[in-house]
């Protein structure tokens, strides 16, 4: 941890300039500004495969797996968590515009002070005894999901000197087929840490990066109760036609 933010930022800008106009939608796996990636990214080309039967389907999750209360991260303890109470909602579609219906969505996040309820998080911000920060729900028939939570804080990490992550919520998503599996992060509009953060910047295309940022939505905001953010998610295309779905 010797590099300065200025050195990391220069690397970020250099790689982005080299990728300009290439229209790459996904993050670079080989992304040296994110130091943990150095020994963990494959160096050989991905091998093209045609999905076979098992890969044309995704695991099924149902109401035996996920209780309705698991979508409310503010009621998991005796008291209310500290922070800005917030609705996060949106719609999940695949690359062909089909809703991802009745499928599992998992989220996890830091508390309002930027601390995870995880033993390896050593950030000296307070833990909140009323907030764990993990939730689940199933999408509805139209692919919609909805969580009630509190807004997470930004937090420091050890990628380089004075490194800070922009506030974010981790999302884990399944699609209609296995090849659509996605784990990603949702960010908040206007965060001043975006240009400095090697994780969001691992997506080098600005338009693709903007798709990681939720929108404030006053229609989701609840009077006297919670602010609202909308984040719609588009998975890759399904390799199975809707006609092949279960009846």
């Amino acid at each position, binding site marked *: 941890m010797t590099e300065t933010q200025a050195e990391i930022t220069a690397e970020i800008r250099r790689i982005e300039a080299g990728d300009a106009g290439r229209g790459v939608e996904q*993050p670079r796996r080989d992304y040296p500004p994110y130091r943990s*990636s150095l020994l963990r990214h494959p160096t050989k080309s991905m091998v093209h495969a045609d999905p076979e039967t098992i890969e044309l389907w995704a695991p099924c999750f149902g109401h035996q797996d996920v209780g309705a209360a698991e979508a409310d991260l503010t009621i998991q303890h005796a008291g209310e968590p500290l922070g800005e109470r917030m609705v996060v909602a949106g719609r999940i579609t695949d690359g062909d515009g089909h809703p991802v219906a009745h499928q599992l969505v998992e989220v996890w996040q830091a508390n309002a002070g930027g601390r995870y309820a995880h033993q390896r998080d050593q950030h000296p911000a307070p833990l909140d005894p009323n907030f764990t920060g993990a939730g689940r729900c199933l999408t509805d028939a139209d692919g919609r999901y909805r969580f009630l939570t509190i807004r997470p804080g930004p937090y420091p990490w050890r990628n380089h000197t004075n490194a800070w992550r922009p506030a974010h919520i981790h999302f884990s998503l399944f699609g209609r087929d296995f090849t659509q599996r996605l784990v990603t992060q949702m960010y908040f509009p206007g965060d001043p840490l975006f240009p400095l953060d090697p994780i969001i910047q691992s997506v080098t295309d600005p338009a693709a990066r903007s798709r990681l940022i939720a929108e404030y939505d006053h229609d989701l905001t609840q009077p006297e109760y919670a602010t609202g953010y909308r984040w719609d998610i588009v998975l890759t295309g399904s390799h199975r036609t809707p006609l092949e779905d279960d009846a």
Partner: protein
Amino acid sequence: MTTPGQTVGPFFHYALPYAGGGDLVPPGRAGAIRLHGHVYDGAGDVVPDALLELWQPGPDGRVPRAGGSLRRDGWTFTGFGRAGTDATGHYSFSTLMPGATSPRRLPFFAVTVFARGLTHRLFTRIYPPVDAAAIANDPLLSGLDPARRDTLVATPDEQGLVFDVRLQGNNETVFLTFPGHR
């Protein structure tokens, strides 16, 4: 216009792994096998904070369509499992051997790999041990040179199968991209 991926990060353990996640069938049940191994980085060091997901047909080759993977009833084979690596980089599943989903296809486990430092999920397959004739008929395995191909084939042990994931380096595991992935 797809939503980009982002790393799973270091702090997923209280959210994604769950009790019984790696036990697609109860360990020791008739027909159960252990599928296990280590995850290594490019320096050959173990990766203690990786997460593997398994998705597979049953021994009869049918694609499971039952829910219940997160809260298992001990009887229903859902075909999905999730297991994190431990402090030694080791993961372990208790499961059933997959069957072929169609007559001229090899059975395999479909796998996704996540880790801190990995900006985007990786797809791969774990094939149970196969003979040369079967390899020649398989569209994926037949197109790989033998050293690369071997990274996708598990080796038997007393309880089942061993499969190591090497994220980088000389024996780097073959990772897959599917049509439409960019």
